[in-house]
């Protein structure tokens, strides 16, 4: 009447595998949501920081004796606001969604571009790119690094061609300068992607172990209940 033992074992194995898959998906989602929230705070902080940088570096523009607020300040307020508010909205309303983290990656790298521009192409501000990639690696999702890196490369290429002072702080950089920057981005990405793969692998193993422990606990509960039924019937 019941299935045979081989089928039982296969079914139990299948159940554990399915449960491990559930636990893994749940854990990954938790990581995505947590990092989305972290970026929500970072985006707000960057906006304030961008405005301060604009005020510090170029607060006013002069035309004869006329003093006006420098366009950089408006760029920091308006463009910075646009770069921060959209990903913040997504992180608030749709945390864990794949689009949210890719939008965050794009915005984060555009923030690097904006800060580099506001600082007049200071080479030190380019470190923001590398710090941002490291933060994005917290997602443990390598395609996010690809999106972010593509934005950096396209930004360096186009601004290098049309407005080199904005990105390198000089008017006549070598035409291949963007490739040098891209190389270091890929260099960092290689190690961050390895960290992502390792993190996901560990998460999968941990989910498998937890599913096995749950399976063993269930099996113990079932055995105890079967024994109780047998004893109760023997006593009755």
């Amino acid at each position, binding site marked *: 009447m019941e299935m045979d033992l081989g089928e039982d074992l296969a079914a139990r194995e299948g159940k554990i595998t399915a449960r491990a898959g559930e636990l893994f998906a749940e854990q990954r989602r938790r990581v995505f949501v947590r990092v989305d929230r972290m970026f929500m705070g970072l985006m707000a902080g960057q906006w304030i920081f961008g405005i301060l940088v604009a005020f510090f570096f170029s607060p006013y523009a002069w035309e004869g004796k006329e003093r006006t607020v420098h366009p950089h300040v408006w760029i920091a307020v308006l463009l910075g606001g646009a770069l921060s508010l959209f990903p913040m909205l997504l992180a608030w309303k749709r945390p864990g969604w794949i689009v949210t983290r890719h939008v965050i990656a794009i915005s984060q790298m555009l923030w690097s571009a904006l800060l580099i521009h506001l600082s007049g192409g200071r080479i030190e501000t380019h470190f923001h790119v590398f710090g941002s990639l490291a933060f994005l690696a917290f997602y443990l999702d390598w395609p996010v690094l690809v999106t972010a890196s593509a934005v950096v490369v396209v930004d360096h290429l186009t601004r290098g061609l049309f407005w080199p002072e904005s990105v390198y702080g000089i008017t006549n950089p070598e035409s291949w300068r963007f490739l040098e920057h891209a190389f270091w981005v890929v260099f960092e990405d290689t190690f961050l992607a390895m960290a992502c793969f390792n993190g996901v692998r560990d998460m999968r193993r941990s989910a498998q172990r937890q599913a096995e422990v749950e399976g063993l606990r269930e099996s113990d*509960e079932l055995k105890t209940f079967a024994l109780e039924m047998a004893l109760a*019937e023997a*006593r009755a």
Partner: protein
Amino acid sequence: MRLSVDRAEGAVEMSFEEFYALALRDRIGVVLRGHIQFYDEARNPIPLTEGLKRLRDQTPAHLRG
């Protein structure tokens, strides 16, 4: 609350009373093989521990040791 028992011909739904009406050998076989699942009135699955607790609480008087 209902439970379902996996048989070779597929899952069979039954009440707790119907489960306890099965022969002891059948009940033990089903339980040991883990061929048992619990559902609430809205047919949502209930964790095994909770289901077994409720099943234990509703053991008919004549089967209590």
